[in-house]
């Protein structure tokens, strides 16, 4: 029998008191695409990072092509024919594509022209379109990912690991990537794709390995399984995938946004002529490829992003409509507009990692009251309430939130925002990195707010969730509204199409 391309035996990795991987036995064969499935925090990326030489296992042994190997550094990984495409690209901004590729090579004469020629060769073989002399900072996300793949192929890797490669891609780019993966598979390469999107698992992979809480649950053939079974393995028990969505009661316009245009800090237009209405008692979902203007839209409403033109009319319950454009973030917040934004690193915005729960509650109230001193009593009580009602797991209330697990961090953030009883609650990626159970706690909180009459704006990544949670879905594409659809009647395909084409312009 042919050797496995890669085999893990008894791999354990700990970070301080947290066990990220526990006694994992797992293998993948050549010419196979394996999905590594698991919720965030299940140890997928950590396991792969050990194969890529980023981390070292505390216990256990990795075999490549049947031989025990010791991978202490990324270089060792390359020497063993393993290449990883990380979720956060490992590229150097001020270098060209060719220079980035050349970084990984340590043999032969150093000749950038030669590298560029070979890059073009690889491009032709697999159908990429990359200019080797282009600087990374001038590239789109998908181009950067292509450079990453070229880097790995250039080195002649036999095993490729892709860490959530589709998160940043359009559906078209995704299908292109998948066809490339199939070509590589036919080349005899072993491919591991880390993902938590079930539809992708079903579409691309031959086998699925499921991790849960750092342990390997099972490896099954894709053809012999189904999404429901995979979900159960991932979560550990049967999960009801339904969200209790009630019909909106008496929706009234709360936010009326017309012709909103803004730029980001580099002066690039990120929102172009955006108009829509968010109603009280309704959840408005916002869909779009990452970076389509979701962040800027929410920040613009919250007063955090400068607005070029347009208006945001806010109509609180029983009050006169008021213009929000031009008000300070503080004023907007005091008027009842809350923003719970969970950035990629979870802590970069909205929370102060080094402070405890009390310190983080103060973010909302720090300038209340007269005089130079800060009030701690109110935030302390709020922290205690959030701690109790949302069951935040923390050693004590002043324990730095940075050291809490992702789910608990988000509970602190969302809990604080809801505690202000806002009349507009905007949340972005509120369930990012959460396990399914905690995600549902958050969804329930959103629904609860909606039933109270709050206008909820929910920016999400997972279309399935948006379809089940929201009442209407606004789709952003390249900073423009490409459509607003009824979540109850639309389909994923329709939204997918809207995500990539503005207002049907490309339909003819």
């Amino acid at each position, binding site marked *: 029998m042919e050797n496995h391309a890669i085999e893990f035996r008894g791999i354990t990795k700990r970070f301080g008191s947290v066990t990220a991987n526990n006694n994992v036995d797992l293998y993948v064969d050549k010419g196979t695409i394996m999905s590594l499935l698991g919720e965030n925090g299940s140890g997928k990326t950590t396991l792969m990072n050990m194969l890529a030489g980023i981390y070292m296992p505390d216990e256990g042994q990795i075999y490549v092509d049947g031989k025990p190997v010791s991978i202490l550094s990324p270089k060792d990984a390359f020497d063993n024919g393993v290449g990883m495409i990380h979720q956060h690209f490992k590229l150097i901004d001020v270098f060209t594509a060719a220079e980035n590729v050349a970084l990984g090579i340590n043999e032969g004469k150093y000749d950038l022209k030669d590298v560029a020629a070979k890059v073009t060769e690889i491009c032709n073989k697999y159908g990429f379109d990359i200019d080797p002399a282009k600087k990374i900072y001038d590239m789109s996300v998908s181009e950067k990912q292509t450079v990453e793949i070229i880097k790995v192929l250039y080195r002649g890797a036999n095993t490729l690991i892709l860490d959530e490669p589709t998160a940043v891609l359009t559906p078209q780019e995704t299908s292109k990537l998948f066809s490339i993966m199939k070509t590589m598979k036919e080349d005899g390469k072993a491919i591991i794709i880390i993902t938590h999107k079930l539809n992708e698992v079903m579409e691309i992979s031959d086998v699925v390995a499921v991790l849960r809480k750092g342990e390997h649950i099972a490896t099954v053939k894709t053809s012999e399984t189904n999404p429901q079974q995979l979900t159960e393995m991932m979560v550990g028990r049967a999960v009801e995938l339904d969200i209790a969505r009630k019909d909106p009661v008496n929706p009234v316009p709360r936010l009326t946004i017309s012709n909103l245009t803004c730029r980001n800090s580099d002066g690039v237009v990120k929102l172009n002529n955006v108009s829509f209405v968010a109603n009280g008692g309704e959840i408005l979902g916002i869909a779009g490829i990452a970076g389509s203007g979701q962040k800027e839209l929410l920040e613009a409403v919250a007063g955090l992003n400068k607005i070029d033109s347009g208006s945001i009319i806010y109509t609180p319950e029983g009050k006169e409509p008021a213009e929000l454009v031009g008000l300070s*973030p503080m004023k907007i917040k005091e008027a009842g507009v809350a923003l719970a934004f969970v950035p990629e690193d979870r802590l970069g915005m909205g929370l102060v*990692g080094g402070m405890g729960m009390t310190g983080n509650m103060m973010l909302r109230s720090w300038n209340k009251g007269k005089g*130079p*001193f800060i009030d701690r009593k109110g935030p302390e009580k709020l922290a205690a309430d959030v701690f109790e009602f949302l069951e935040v797991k923390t050693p004590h209330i002043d324990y730095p939130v940075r050291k809490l697990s992702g789910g608990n961090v988000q509970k602190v953030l969302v809990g604080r925002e809801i505690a202000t009883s806002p009349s507009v609650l905007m949340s972005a990626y509120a369930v990012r990195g959460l396990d399914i159970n905690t995600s549902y706690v958050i969804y329930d909180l959103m629904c609860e707010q909606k039933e109270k009459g709050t206008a909820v704006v929910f920016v999400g990544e997972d279309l399935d969730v948006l379809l089940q949670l929201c009442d209407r879905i606004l789709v952003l594409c390249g900073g423009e509204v490409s459509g607003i659809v009824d979540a109850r009647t639309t389909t994923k395909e329709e939204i997918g199409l809207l995500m990539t084409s503005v207002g049907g312009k490309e339909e003819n």
Partner: protein
Amino acid sequence: MNEKTPFIRIAKREDASKKRIWTVRIAAFAVAILLGMIIFVIAGANPIKAYGVMITSSLGKKSGIKQVVKNAIPLLGTGLALAPCFRMRYWNIGAEGQITMGAMAATYFALNWYSKMPSAVLLLVMGIASLVFGGLWSAIPAIFKSRWGTNETLFTLMMNYIAIGIVAWLQGGPWEGKPGSQIIPMFDKKAVLPKLFGVHCGWVIVLLLVAFMFVYMNYTKHGYEIAVLGESENTARYAGMNILKVTVRTAALSGAICGLVGFMTASGVNQTLQSGVAGGVGFTAITVCWLAQLNPFAMVAISFLLAVLSKGASGLQTTLSIPASISDIITGIILLCMLGCEFFINYRLIFRDKQAKNGKEAA
């Protein structure tokens, strides 16, 4: 386990115990003292005797203690001034220049207004002038930092030399006393800080500053803003804080206190203005502040220790004729050891044989 496993691996330590923290720090200090002994041996002195001289000449007599306090005042004052900047992760290494500008502003009034008002008023005016000038000098890089992201470490560094150059010019030009002397005239008695227990009353001011800084950093809205901004600019914006205002205000406060230190040194110690009024205090204070981990009370202890060293070293020069620059060497060694030892508090080392054992157990 295979042989390629490195002999030592490094891992982050979550929460080191108090006991461990202090054991490590005391050990580092002991190492520094031992290294200092080697320096003495190389210099041809008996290290025990040398340390003895350092202690007796600084703490053994009243005049020594007075000098120590005098040396500690600017170090402590400047260390305190820098604390909010560092909490904000704003690298103000321009204390040297801010001290100089503060001293310059105070000197202007000392030279020109001494005949117009009583001593107390004059000193008050000088103090205010030094606060304003130190603050303004420090605000300039802060404005550029928060507006355009100009690197403040390098900018504040440049501002030091510009400030010192300006005073050097005043010293040899417009403010020169006797033509050709390159010296600014001595202050009138009215412009000299009065003494309290034999040392100019600056020590009372810095002790008050210790309390002020402790409260300011921990219990005020400003302190909270600074802490949030230091953690994340995005979060600060999100919380409705005005980044520009907080940055500039904090840098200005820091510079103002540095300016006040300059006033105290010029008026209380030198009784005139020299381009070297800061004399490296601005740099040494950065290490004081950092080693104290921004804790005002710890700064008292550290600045006192460094002051003992420098006074002790001048004792060495007179009794054992060892160059006083040895105090800088020993100060440097202590600082480097203390900086290095933090590693053993924040990280732990994992040795290979221990790891191998774990591996076997698992197998």
